[in-house]
């Protein structure tokens, strides 16, 4: 019997591991390397109404145990995603979580309406947290009332459950989480990237053309864990956790913190086989730890009490 299957609103997952949006394109590149059907789900690249080229290059810079990116929501637009990318993915037995972005509430609504009709889209992920676009994106994710409204409006039109991806660039993550829950969100995904900066030692100028970028990778894992830990105790909807996961051990920490599934982002860039590796390792890890099912781990950190009772 599998110890990895998880059921979430709209999503019957054979395992709780999925690539994070923006780190996997629409799967075409990875499909050349392994069978995408082994993934729990797939969060595909953010989609807007019209195609976007995104920001000028350079768009990435390395940081200590992490990286900055400012891609700028490059995507082919909702029509192409709906008619080309999503149908192509139907050959795989994997539920798709479609990431919805926009610069106005109306755009979120329109994209959500279209993408939720796709056969293999089992849930939407509202991207109210992209730090790299001038209009929209993060602006919707930092003001609770607006976060609530965009969630409610997308819920009205969506034919599948709606998850909302939160930004860590806020003072109180729980306030935003409660706002999107009140707006009718079926689940929360967190965290998106943290706004950061790197400068060129020789020129003194920012390395990324957009000046700032979103920080991801192992460097942000403690922040992501803390936010999952806090939010999962304050809302009654499930959380898909993400932020710097590189291994099954990292993934397990997110379950302990309160996540019901996890997404793998930056790790796909250094090891394209990161997702299948973590799926295999997680099963072995649970076996080693005598854990019957991954669901037994969800929220263990706060269910057991905050202090560690480890003694040397």
């Amino acid at each position, binding site marked *: 019997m599998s110890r990895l299957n998880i059921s979430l609103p709209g999503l019957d997952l054979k395992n709780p591991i999925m690539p994070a949006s923006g780190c996997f394109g629409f799967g075409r590149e990875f499909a050349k390397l392994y069978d995408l059907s082994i993934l729990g789900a797939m969060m595909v690249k953010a989609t807007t109404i019209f195609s976007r080229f995104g920001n000028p290059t350079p768009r990435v810079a390395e940081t200590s*145990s992490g*990286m900055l990116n400012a891609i700028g929501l490059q995507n082919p637009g909702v029509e192409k995603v709906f008619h080309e990318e999503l149908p192509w993915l139907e050959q795989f037995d994997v539920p798709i979580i479609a990431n919805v972005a926009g610069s106005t509430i109306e755009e979120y609504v329109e994209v959500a309406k279209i993408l939720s009709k796709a056969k293999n889209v089992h849930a939407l992920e509202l991207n109210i947290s992209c730090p790299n676009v001038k209009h929209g994106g993060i602006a919707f994710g930092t003001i609770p009332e607006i976060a609530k409204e965009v969630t409610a409006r997308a819920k009205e039109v969506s034919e599948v459950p709606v998850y909302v991806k939160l930004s860590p660039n806020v003072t109180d993550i729980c306030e935003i989480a409660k706002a999107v829950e009140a707006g009718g969100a079926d689940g929360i995904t967190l965290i998106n990237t943290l706004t950061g900066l790197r400068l060129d030692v020789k020129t003194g100028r920012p390395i990324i053309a957009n000046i700032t970028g979103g920080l991801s990778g192992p460097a942000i894992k403690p922040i992501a864990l803390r936010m999952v830990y806090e939010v999962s105790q304050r809302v009654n909807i499930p959380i898909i956790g993400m932020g710097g996961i590189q291994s099954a051990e990292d993934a397990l920490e997110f379950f302990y913190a309160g996540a019901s599934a996890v997404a793998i982002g930056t790790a796909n860039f250094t090891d394209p086989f990161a997702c299948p590796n973590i799926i295999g390792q997680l099963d072995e890890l649970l076996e080693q730890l005598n854990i019957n099912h991954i669901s037994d781990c969800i929220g263990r950190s706060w269910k057991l009490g905050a202090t560690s009772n480890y003694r040397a």
Partner: protein
Amino acid sequence: MIQLEEMKITEQKEIATNIFHLQIQGDLVSQIKQPGQFVHVKVAEGIEPLLRRPISIAKINHEENILSLIYRADGKGTSLLSKKHPGELVSILGPLGNGFPITQHKGKTALLVGGGIGVPPLYELSRQLTSLGIRVIHVLGFQSANVSFLENEFSRLGMTYIATVDGSKGMQGFVTDVIEAEKLTFDCLYACGPTPMLKALEQKFPDKEVYLSLEERMACGIGACFACVRPTTCGDGYKKICSDGPVFRAGEVVL
């Protein structure tokens, strides 16, 4: 097909100031299709540095499954790589990208123009062109003599001109100065080097068959992260340097 492999270092030596020649052995060598392709190198285990480093392939030895990388150790990652010894393993993802197409036939002339650390992929290209009976002329530009390399190897394959910015070797100036001064003619031009050099060549030979190998900061190297895109010159399209390139026909993308 792209492979991820722990390849064995068979040789590493400094061939000019901070320029290293690394030879690595493994099965993925058999997958290399074209000169101008590259590999993505994890210079250290673990998460520091996190990202791989894209390095072009300088020479392919199919008989012994060995490929050569020539790189400049000027950052944290490449400096770490330069400290690795023969016998050690290094994680390689590759071969990646599309290299230089060989469209000419026996008796034709190809001009190969390299700038600095853009020179290495031209070496394998030149080896393959000459083996097909295509005449090659090389113009190699460097900052100065102490960072110049592969001059003898290129000379064995064909006429080789050197330009240095400070005049410490060859002609003082840029590669384009050499092409003009020597009145070099050719049927096809291949170039790899800094963007201003590529731009100058594209503008100088608008009616010729010119192929340019581009460079950009990249994360995944396989086309998934959209870090290394360039707009196309016509329409509102784009190309990814890692997976559509790194070699493009001049005029295909905005430099």
